[in-house]
Structures are given as C-alpha cells and as structure tokens.
C-alpha cells in the first residue's frame, strides 16, 4: 500500500472513532435527564418550556437532535458550566489547558531520555543487578497509585519547604504555563516558585511514564539482540555496546513510538489525579472538581477533549510507525 493511501485510511478510521466518542458522550448527556432543564428555571412558565424546547430543536427526532448537537460541538459549543458562573466550557478548558500541557511537555522531555538510558542498561545487563533494580523501580511505578505517591512526596517535600501548593505569581500570563511565563517576564524568583509548583507533580508523572517506557524498550531491545543482523555484526567483530546502541536500539526505538498513545492516556488520566493532589489549576483538576459538583456538562467537555487528544496522538503514532517501518502498511 502506498504511504498516502495509508494516511487516508488511517484518517478515516480516526474520524470514525471520534464520531463514536461523540455518540457515547451524547448518550450519556441524554441519560442525565430532560435536555431542556439547563435552559429553564423554576419560574419559567409551562407554556414557555415548549417554546424553548422547539427553539433548541429538542422536539425533533433524536438523530436530528444529535446532528444539531454535533454541529454545535464542531463550532466549539460545549455548553455552559453552572459551577463556574455559566462560563462557556470551551473557554474554560482552553484557559486551564496550558498548566496541564506544561506538565505533559516536561514529562515527555525528561521521561524519554531517562527511559532510553534505563531500558538500555537493563537490556544490556539482563537478569543481573541493574536489571533487577530497574524492574523493582518499574513494578513500584505501576503498582503504587499516583495519588499515594503524590501525597507522600508532598508530605516530605512540603515539610522540607521544597514545594509550593498555592503560589501567587506576579508576572503576566502569556502562554499560561508558569515556568515559561516567568522566563518571558525575566522574573527569577517567580521562576523558582513556578518550579516549586511543578516539581512534585512532575516527579510522579515521570516515574509512572518511565516505568512503562523502560520496560517496553527493554523487551524490544532484547528481542532485537537475538536477530540475525545482530549476530552478523558481532561476527564481524563490532563491540557489544556499539552493536546495542548503533544497531539494535535504532530498530527497538520504532516500537517505542507505539506507546505514545498509552502515554497520552497516562498524561490525561494522570492529570486528573495529580492536579488534584498538588492543586495545579489544569483541566484535570477542573474536571475532577466539576465531577464532585455534579457539573456534568463540564466533565463531558473534558471527556470530549480527552478523546480528541488521544485519537490525535494515536493517529500521529501510527503514521510515524508506518513511516519508519514500511512492513506495517505493506502488511495491510
């Protein structure tokens, strides 16, 4: 299959999944009660209710209602949030997104090299002490709930005055990411504060990510090391570390791409937990507090955004994968 037709097929699939996600959210929305309720109060006269129902097309057949609802979504209409003074949900999500994005950016920038190093070390020393240590680190990383890890870290770091849970920043909001805004404003103490606000959440996020990534890299490296081309390289007298880093790791890295989607999921569900622990004003905390206040429109807005991000991440990962490994699209 040609690369372009692979991209087209994969895009069609991504759009199909997004439609599915929107259907799922629509079903949940409608199961919450009469869709007209958000538009009326107890003083609205009975006669007006039917007019309002007609105005928002809520008297049409259900698939027409879905079409109107979807059309609204595409124009960025996610509804209003009662817990935030009836602010438009799309705007709320955009305002809170940068803090979550900041955490995601640093997580990727730090996790990938750390996982590369850890995965290589444990593959090179398979079933020896470094491998066992890395296994313990990984198993602990995914058996320990993120909120427990976060709370314990917070307890220790807060006692040592390393952590800030509700800082006040004096610099202007430009990107919405405190560490970057502080640099732009040239505010050194603000920069330090922004890092004290970030560091706890970052450690938890990096730990869980590295735990998965390093294991995946380790197993694909070990698999590559058993292949014929590696034996050939060894037979030619290439030394062991060059075989691993210059030959096997390049191929093992391809499998690394596949966990991008998993990482995106970790980032989003992790942000709900971690932002709640460290009081970081991102979309995760927004969704978690909306859920405790029964603000269903806001939670569902977050679910939709999550779906879009996940589908995009998986799409990009698959395209990269097919680019680096042509067997994928030929096998289709």
């Amino acid at each position, binding site marked *: 299959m040609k690369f372009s037709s692979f991209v087209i097929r994969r895009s069609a699939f991504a759009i199909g999944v997004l439609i*599915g996600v929107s259907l799922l959210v629509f079903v949940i929305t409608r199961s919450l009660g009469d869709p007209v309720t958000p538009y009326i109060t107890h003083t609205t006269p009975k006669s007006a209710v039917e007019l309002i129902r007609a105005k928002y097309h809520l008297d049409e057949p259900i698939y027409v209602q879905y079409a109107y609802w979807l059309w609204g979504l595409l124009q960025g209409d996610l509804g209003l949030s009662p817990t935030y003074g009836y602010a438009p949900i799309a705007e709320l999500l955009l305002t809170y997104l940068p803090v979550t994005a900041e955490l995601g950016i640093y997580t990727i920038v730090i996790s990938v090299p750390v996982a590369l190093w850890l995965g290589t070390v444990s593959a090179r020393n398979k079933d020896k002490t470094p491998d066992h240590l890395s296994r313990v680190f990984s198993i602990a990383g995914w058996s*320990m*709930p993120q*909120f*427990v890890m976060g*709370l*314990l870290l917070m307890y220790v770091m807060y006692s040592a005055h390393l952590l800030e849970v509700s800082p006040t920043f004096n610099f202007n909001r430009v990107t919405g990411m405190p560490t970057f805004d502080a640099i732009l404003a040239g505010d050194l103490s603000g920069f330090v504060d922004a890092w004290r606000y970030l560091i706890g959440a970052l450690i938890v996020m990096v730990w869980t990510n590295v735990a998965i990534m390093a294991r995946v890299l380790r197993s694909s490296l070990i698999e590559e090391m058993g292949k014929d081309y590696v034996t050939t390289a060894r037979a030619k007298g290439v030394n062991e570390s060059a075989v691993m880093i210059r030959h096997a790791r390049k191929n093992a890295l391809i499998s690394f791409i596949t966990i991008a989607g998993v990482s995106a999921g970790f980032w989003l569900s992790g942000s709900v*937990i971690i932002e709640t622990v460290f009081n970081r004003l991102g979309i995760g905390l927004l969704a*978690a507090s909306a859920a405790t206040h029964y603000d269903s429109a806001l939670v569902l807005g977050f679910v939709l955004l999550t779906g879009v991000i996940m589908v995009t991440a998986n799409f990009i990962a698959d395209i990269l994968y097919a680019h680096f490994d042509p067997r994928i699209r030929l096998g289709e």
Partner: protein
Amino acid sequence: MPDSRTATQFSELRRTLSPQLREARRRFEAILERPLSVLGLALVILYLVLALAAPLLAPPPPDSYDPYLIPKVVTVGPQPPSYEHPFGTSGPQFYCDVFYGVVWGSRMSQLIALSVVGISLIIGILVGAIAGYSGGLIDEALMRTTDVFFSLPGLVLAMALILALGRSVSTVIVAIAIVWWPGYARLLRGEFLRLKNELFVEAARAIGVSDLKIVFKHIVPNAIFPVLVVGAMDVGTVVLVASGLGFLGIGAVPGTAEWGVLISVSRNWLLQGAWWSTVFPGMAIFTFVLGWTLLGDGLRDILDPRTLRAV
C-alpha cells in the same frame, strides 16, 4: 449401585485428566521457583485472609447496620497510632478509625475488583466470541465499538459514566466494568480468529455440531486461557482505578471502608503531620496491586505453552 459407578467414573476421569494434572502440578511448581511470583502469591493470600477475617480483626459495633461504614471515633484532631487505634484516626469531619478502614477496605477492594473482572470477562467473552466466530459486518461493528472505548482512558470514562449512574459502590463496579470489557473482547476475538479454521473445529463442523456448541464447547475452552491471565493481572489495576475514583470523591460515599475514600477524607490533615491516614491505606493499595501484578506476571510467563518447556 450409584456409588461404585461414581467411583469408576472418577477413576476414569482421573486417568483421562492425568496428563493435565501433571502439567498443572509442574506449572505450580514452576511458580514456586520464582521468588517474585512467590511474593505475589503470598500477598494475594494475605489479603484474601484479611478479607475473610475482617469481622474478627475489626468487629463492627453491635448497632452497626452496614459493616462497610467505618464507625466514628470522635477526637479533636487526627490521633496518631495507639494501642486502641493501631493505625490512628482520621479526625474531622468523618472521624474514621484507619485500622478498621484498612481491614474492611481489603474486603471492599476484593469485592469491587472481582466483580468488575467477573462482569467484564462475561461481556468480553460473549462479544469476543460473537465477533470472532461470525466475522464480517458484525465483527466490524463490534470491533469499532471497542476502538471507541480504547480511545478514552479508563478513569476518565468511568468518571463520566458515574455521572449518569449515580454515586455508590455498585455504580463504581458497573462503570469500571463498562470501561473494562473491550480489552477481553479483543483478546478473545484474536484467539478465535486463530482457532476457528483449525482442524478440530472443521471436524466438529463436518459431523454437524451446532454453531453454539462449537463456540462454547470447542473453541472457548482453547481460547480462554490468555484472557484469564490478563484478568488476573487486572484485579490489581481495577483497584487502582476504583481507589482513584474514591480519592477524587466521586466513588463510594465518604465514611465507606474503601482505601481511596479513606485517604480522601483525611487528606486535609496530611500537611499538618497526620501521615498515618495516608500511609496505611496507601501501603494497602500498593501491596495489594503489587501482589496481583507479580502473580499475574508469573502466571503469564509460566502458563504460556510456548514458554513452558523452556522453564
């Protein structure tokens, strides 16, 4: 003479099963040779015992109508571990005895995890079997449905589902099960695709065995193994999600003996120094999940027929 007939049947059964029994024993012994798997097995058994012995270890007060509601211990602030309250108390507003919460929480966690895995296994096996055996449009429709579920992280989707279902332990179970089944469905479908053209299936079809019987008597028993192993590993993961929901305050109601809820109700006191109400339930979740992960990991390596001979 029903007795002697049962006896003959039994010895006959044992003879036909003897290769399997030998195999099972070899596999079990292989588990015992791996220290990490032994640790996992020990932890799993420990929590099983803890759950069964909960009424003895932390007897609910006589007037309690629901043992999963932690009896109140009213103190000014959270109290550190003492002889009377080995894991301390949580203090205002819910005044929980942490030891009681941890002990009954182990029962609660196993109740949640086993129900979720059980329900999702049933749905997943049914859907996977239908998709894998029928193929074509039905298969396509079912698999695209699972794709939708896979595009949302479990915790996020469960949060949204709980909105629609309401907040209680049973809705947490239902919500997580709805999130969980697609994994099993896909796995089983893959096994079905591998098996459905095998000779023994062809043979059954040739002698006129009905589709239903082919699926559930011939293919499912051969395909179910990897699904069950993943199910065992998931027992821990389900508890991670459930306790996460409890911690966020959208799972079981505050005051319930659930580890995540217990941590959530005492969170405000942590930075004042009340470490015990986070550390004890937190370590309970960690060791519980660790146990099932290690055991599942060991099971996967040992029970996989392809690696068995190498063990």
